[in-house]
């Protein structure tokens, strides 16, 4: 197992390195001059030159690249052009709120999606299957901000069950959960729609396997076959997809945080965009890269536990 983990770790480091290189070049290859983007068209040439020097953009590209990579490794991600505080501090300040939201969404999504997907597969081409398939397709069709607005309209504005604005900083656990509920439900439902479909098709594939037929022939109760023989094999594609889904989840969390006015990376990125805080944007891209690579690594390691065969391949 440890050699497997080491190998995955090696891959993660390579991916991290390539994505960080991509981030570096995206910001520099795109035609817009960051200094010009920050200061606007009316800025004087001297001001633009000064900002370019402050951002280190006047140095040769290879030196900039070296400094960027060294900065990422040592935790020096530059200072925000708006607040003047270190970028990494501002990010770490709101990161827990975003993690809290995504983990809650993940639990909801898996908790709803896996049972529904299994049920749908078991009752294939019967009424529950049709209803679940149609509902999950509908769930996938919602842009996250549209579903968030609808939830806000119904549960916060009409029924007044939840706060319109979520502070994400409730004192007690109950207050925190109450704050978290609606944003997490929003992200969770969309994720559940996704997981339902994957769980269904994975389950259908497993149900067609010979060992399931053998188990049936042996007279094992159907529920036992599902629980003991099928579920674990269904989990592999589901875990893969949860890992792949992270990119979508991050995008959706940005939109959800905006609608519910909840602190987090999403609001930070929109603020940075509006105020043209270029240093903050680069820092946010670094943190997103770190999160994606880390989650992919965790996904790979999880495989090893779910499927013993993976370790040896």
């Amino acid at each position, binding site marked *: 197992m440890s050699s497997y983990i080491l190998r995955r770790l090696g891959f993660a480091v390579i*991916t991290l390195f*390539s*994505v960080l290189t*991509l981030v570096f070049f*995206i*910001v520099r290859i*795109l*035609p*817009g001059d*960051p200094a010009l*983007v920050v200061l606007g068209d009316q800025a004087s040439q001297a001001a633009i030159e000064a900002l370019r020097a402050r951002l280190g953009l006047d140095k040769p590209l290879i030196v900039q690249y070296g400094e960027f990579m060294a900065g990422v490794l040592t935790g020096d991600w530059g200072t925000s052009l708006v607040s003047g505080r270190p970028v990494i501090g501002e990010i770490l300040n709101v990161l827990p709120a975003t993690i809290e939201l995504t983990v809650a969404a993940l639990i909801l999504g898996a908790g709803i999606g896996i049972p529904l997907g299994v049920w749908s597969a078991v009752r294939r081409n019967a009424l529950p299957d049709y209803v679940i398939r149609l509902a999950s*397709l*509908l769930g*996938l*069709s*919602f*842009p*996250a*901000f*549209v579903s968030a*607005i*609808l939830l*806000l*309209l119904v549960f916060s*504005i009409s029924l007044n069950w939840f706060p319109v604005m979520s502070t994400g900083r409730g004192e007690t656990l109950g207050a925190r959960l109450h704050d978290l509920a609606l944003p997490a439900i929003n992200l969770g439902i969309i994720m559940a729609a996704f997981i339902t479909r994957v769980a269904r098709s994975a389950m259908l*594939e497993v149900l067609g396997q010979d060992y399931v037929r053998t188990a049936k022939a042996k007279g094992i109760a159907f529920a036992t076959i599902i629980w003991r023989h099928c579920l674990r094999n269904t989990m592999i594609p589901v875990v893969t997809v949860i890992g792949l889904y*992270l*990119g*979508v989840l*991050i*995008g*959706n969390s*940005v*939109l959800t945080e*905006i*609608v519910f006015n909840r602190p987090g990376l999403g609001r930070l*990125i*929109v603020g940075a*965009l*509006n105020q043209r805080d270029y240093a903050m*944007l680069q820092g*946010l*891209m670094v943190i*997103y*890269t770190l999160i*994606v*690579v880390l989650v*992919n690594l965790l996904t790979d390691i999880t495989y090893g536990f779910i499927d013993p065969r993976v370790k040896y391949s």
Partner: protein
Amino acid sequence: MTHANTTAAPRRYLRTMLRATGTALVKAFNTNKTSWVGLLVFLAVCALALLAPVIAPHDPIDQDVFQRLYGPSAEHWLGTDVFGRDILSRILYGARISLVIGLVSIGLAMLIGTVIGLVAGYYGGRLDIVMMQTMDVLLAFPSLILGLIVVAMLGPSIPNLIFAIALTAIPPFARIARAPTIAIKDREFMEAGRALGYSDRRLMFRHLLPNILPEVLVMGSIWIATAIRVEASLAFIGLGVSPPTATWGGMIREGFENILDSTWLVLFPSLAILIVVFALNLLGDGLRDAIDPRLKGEQ
């Protein structure tokens, strides 16, 4: 080879390829009837968008300060916005932006991605590793964030939005084109082609491409839905086509400020997005099931 032969052959080939792809798609449509529903709704939306200048009851950017925030009425079926503009007309015109960006960006991604997948799969080796590693890196990055940064740097305009969305959609097409290419490239008909001295380009585009085209097209329909969703999301964040041009995401963004007393401002454009995206998902999902070789014989 005579001159007449060299000009007639590509045309004949194109006809054969289109016919084969068409037959596969029609069969897929008939296997899964919900695809027809999706297609009809989508075509209806396209028709409404095309006819917007004829059927829209008002000008989409004409402001009327005396008719601000009117609810739905006989004159304004879906009400008016904070500038007194007719919501129905803005939704009809907004459909044009959504559809153009969705169709063109995915068309581009499909073209570039398929070529990358074909070339990577066909040649294999180091080229394959480098190309697919690049695709994986692009795939690893959250697409909305990538789109957000690209549009923020380039400025919000239709071509830039198309570029940003196409960029995020290339990797999946490269992946879907590569897998069957690897499976097919050593089959007998390819060997025969090679023995006859056909060029790699001819083998790839005339003999491999028709085999993967139906799958790529089906995925295209699902990705148009995604592109429309991403465009609306970017517009909601404030990175859509600049106002006063009507876009669905932009309308929701503006309406969101008055959500407490004028719910129709966000409700109708939301519904419009939902209908188009759901129709495209129905279309693509049904077709995918029908052409998926693993599900053959189960329908």
